[in-house]
């Protein structure tokens, strides 16, 4: 007998042979048993998940002499003919190469004839998404009212390319990627049938590199059997696939994480000398880093990992010693390397540079470099403490502005301090607060109030909408260097708006008053009267405002807190 590749030899012959897709198989079997056969089916799913196989089994089940039956015998004439692709009632069309309207017209002509051998005429149209628009429409008419005893099975990897009107006329089944266990079980079965000795882990590796497609897995198995002479060991398989042992990957990552560049480079050197391809190694590293990251984020109990318990624990251990942001950075470097590798004729150089980058992000590991970095960190820490104290910042965006603002503030302040009190507390950065707390801030509430229209004008010049926010507020209290601006209870929106533009307002105030200050925006306490007669008071409010402006007076009625104070 001529050699038959494994995946053809082990093409499923009946529903029991189909791997995974339980719900599809169950539905189809029920349809056969209970004669609820639809005119058209659409099988959608990634490659190697059993679409065409299922279609063929289904065709056989329909046409078997005992059929329609859920268990085609596989021995009768029709079964055998369908199996070998010789049946005239089961027509397989590859839509990728017969995609025109003419081919479909021919099909339409032939559809009318009754099946000659079996009881059903089955059209299996593979890769149906490749049909042209015209062809789709021609097919549509046939699908709409198919003659009796004709079943269409459309298979596609890309259902979204199939037009809606076709979709709505088919009973659709979705084929999902096969789980690692399903694939491994099938591989084990084939190995046993073929009398091949194997290591469980070896099949696991094959299954994993097939990424959920059974056909790829079986092809790889076929290749592996020839390569290893029917004795599958982990080492052989890894060699065949050019894969690096997981233990080595773990080692490599440990070196990287511990910033041990010498050892990591040595490891790379060894691998290259042993003849491993650099690009495969890098893509393995990427996958490995991804697993580490996922384990870190999702925990090892997550269903997305198809590893053995043992492997998972090992991975978890490695992942614990590194934080996510570093892993993400490592992945970035690795993918960058992967790209560079396709342009370079010196892959070794690329990977070596990559290793150095991963080990020391700043590359500079001299004492000087470290010193500056430590200093930087210290500064950043101090900044964080200061920020905690004043609690002014809320949104992260305005942080940067604030930072800038503070710097200018500090400048102004220090200048003033120098003027007033010859160089007292300038050197300590933390005393910045203290410096403003004591008598350098001399502005009183009265001053602020008097200057308020000027401040508003200043703000308006910068940004008119901010002035609109601020119009609703009133300065009510000055405590140390902080000006409290109160907003009426129903003006929360304006308060928020003002908060967002705090820096701008601060600048305006410091320009008008000649001194930097802090701001606090608050909502005033409940206003009982206002609640009662809102409308009346609104009208009154306008009047009051005008009066206040005219006489430069103050509004006391709104806030009871002030009276308490």
């Amino acid at each position, binding site marked *: 007998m001529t050699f038959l590749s494994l995946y053809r030899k082990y093409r499923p012959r009946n529903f029991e042979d189909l791997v995974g897709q339980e719900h599809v198989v169950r539905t189809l079997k029920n349809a056969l048993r209970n004669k609820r056969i639809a005119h058209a089916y659409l099988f959608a799913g990634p490659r190697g998940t059993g679409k065409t196989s299922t279609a063929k089994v289904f065709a056989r089940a329909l046409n078997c002499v005992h059929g329609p039956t859920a268990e085609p015998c596989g021995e009768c004439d029709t079964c055998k003919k369908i199996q070998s692709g010789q049946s005239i009632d089961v027509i397989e069309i590859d839509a990728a190469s017969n995609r025109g309207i003419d081919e479909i017209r021919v099909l339409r002509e032939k559809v009318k004839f009754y099946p000659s051998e079996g009881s059903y005429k089955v059209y299996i149209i593979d890769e149906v998404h490749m049909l042209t628009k015209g062809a789709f429409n021609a097919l549509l008419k046939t699908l709409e009212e198919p003659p009796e005893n004709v079943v269409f099975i459309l298979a596609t990897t890309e259902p979204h390319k199939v037009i809606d009107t076709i979709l709505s006329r088919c009973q659709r089944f*979705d084929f999902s990627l096969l789980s690692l266990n399903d694939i491994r079980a099938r591989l084990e079965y084939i190995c046993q049938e073929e009398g091949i000795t194997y290591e469980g882990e070896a099949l696991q590796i094959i299954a994993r590199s097939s990424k959920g497609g059974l056909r790829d897995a079986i092809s790889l198995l076929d290749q592996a059997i020839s390569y290893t002479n029917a004795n599958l060991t982990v080492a052989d398989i890894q060699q065949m696939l050019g894969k690096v042992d997981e233990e080595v990957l773990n080692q490599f990552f440990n070196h990287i994480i511990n910033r041990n560049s010498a050892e990591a480079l040595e490891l790379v050197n060894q691998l290259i000398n042993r003849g491993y391809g650099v690009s495969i190694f890098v893509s393995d590293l990427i996958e490995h880093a991804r697993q580490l990251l996922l384990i870190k984020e*999702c925990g090892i109990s997550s269903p*997305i990992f198809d590893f053995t318990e043992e492997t998972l624990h090992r991975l978890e251990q490695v992942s614990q010693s590194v934080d996510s942001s570093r892993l993400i950075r490592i992945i970035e470097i690795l993918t960058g390397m992967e790209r560079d590798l396709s342009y370079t004729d010196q892959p070794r150089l690329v990977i070596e540079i990559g290793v150095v980058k991963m080990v020391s992000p700043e590359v500079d590991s001299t004492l000087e470099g470290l010193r500056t970095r430590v200093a930087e960190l210290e500064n950043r820490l101090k900044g964080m403490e200061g920020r905690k104290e004043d609690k002014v910042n809320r949104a992260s965006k305005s942080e940067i502005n604030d930072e800038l603002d503070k710097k200018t503030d500090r400048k102004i302040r220090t200048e003033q301090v120098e003027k007033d009190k010859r160089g007292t507390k300038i050197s300590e950065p933390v005393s910045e607060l203290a410096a403003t707390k004591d008598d350098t801030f001399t502005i009183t509430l009265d001053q602020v109030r008097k200057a308020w229209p000027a401040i508003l004008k200043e703000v308006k010049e910068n940004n008119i909408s901010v002035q609109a926010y601020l119009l609703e507020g009133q300065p009510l209290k000055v405590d140390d260097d902080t000006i409290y601006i109160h907003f009426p209870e129903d003006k929360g929106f304006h308060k928020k708006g003002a908060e967002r533009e705090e820096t701008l307002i601060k600048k305006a105030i410091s320009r008008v008053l000649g001194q930097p200050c802090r701001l606090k925006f608050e909502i005033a306490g409940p206003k009982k009267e206002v609640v009662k007669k809102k409308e009346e008071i609104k009208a009154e409010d306008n009047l009051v405002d005008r009066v206040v402006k005219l006489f430069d007076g103050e509004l006391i009625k709104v806030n009871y807190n002030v009276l308490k104070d």
Partner: protein
Amino acid sequence: MNNLEKIFNVTEDKLKPVYLIYGEDSYLLHDCKKKFIERYISDEIRDFNYTFLDDEVEDFLATLKNQVNTPPFMADKRYIIARTSRYFTEKNERNSLLVKLLQNFPETTVLLIIVEGKVDQRLKVVEEVKKIGEVINLKPPKYKELDKWIVNQFKIRGKIVDAGSVKLLEQMFNNELELLNSEIEKIITYKYDEKRITLRDVKEIISKDKLIEDNIIFSLTDALISKQKGRAVNILNEMIQQGALPLRILGTIIWQLRLFLSVKVLKREGKDPVAIAKTLKSHQYPVKKCYHLSNNFTEEEMELMLERFLQANLHIVTGKYDARMALELAILED
């Protein structure tokens, strides 16, 4: 469905000569045709006194005229079903032929005209039909009617279905009866031996990419904005395993994040969900969902997240990462 009783609740001799049925939903039209045949055209007369015509055939009008004017053979009536999408919907220079035919319509013929699409009521032909027959518009059911329809579909197949499943089916397929019909048929075949259909059964077998797009993706964005990164990655991988395309997932995530952001901004301006849905020209259901969840994050966080996913898109199209990796990183990064 009441209009249809005009056809099906009369005895054969009371049938009007012409019925014009039209609508967008091909399932309903098809169903109506089937029922008409079952009700009036018995097997005995089918061979000699029934003709089905499609406007795809050459000289459709001539054949139609010929058939209409042929007297019945060994029976009282002759039945013709004509399906067209070209006549009755817009002005057609050959309409006058139809008008003539309708004006001299033989009493012994019953003509059922099925028009896929919208009939133009102003046309003279349509008026002629109204004079001697009925014009019926078939509309697919909505809301409660749709609920009833779905439950009934299960019932006539001998199954009981719970409210959750009906809701899910409605969400998935709206009132596209043809799709609904084939999904229901599939569900029933799947659970043929059981009388009761549960939500879990429906979820297991229902067409996936609808489910993924509309439902699961919500739990993904849910996880994202409640900052459960691990869960988000799990859901993502589950979706890919089930055959969803990463780029499509990305597209939907971006769409949803934009929706979230818009809802959040409009909420700040004091609008309620209904008004927001109107402004955004979006369906109320997702808007309401976003509305309730919008306190979990600030506008800024939202913007940053949106930016990360847009960045991921760039990475994918420029080939920096493969699609799944890009998505995962976008989820995990801060």
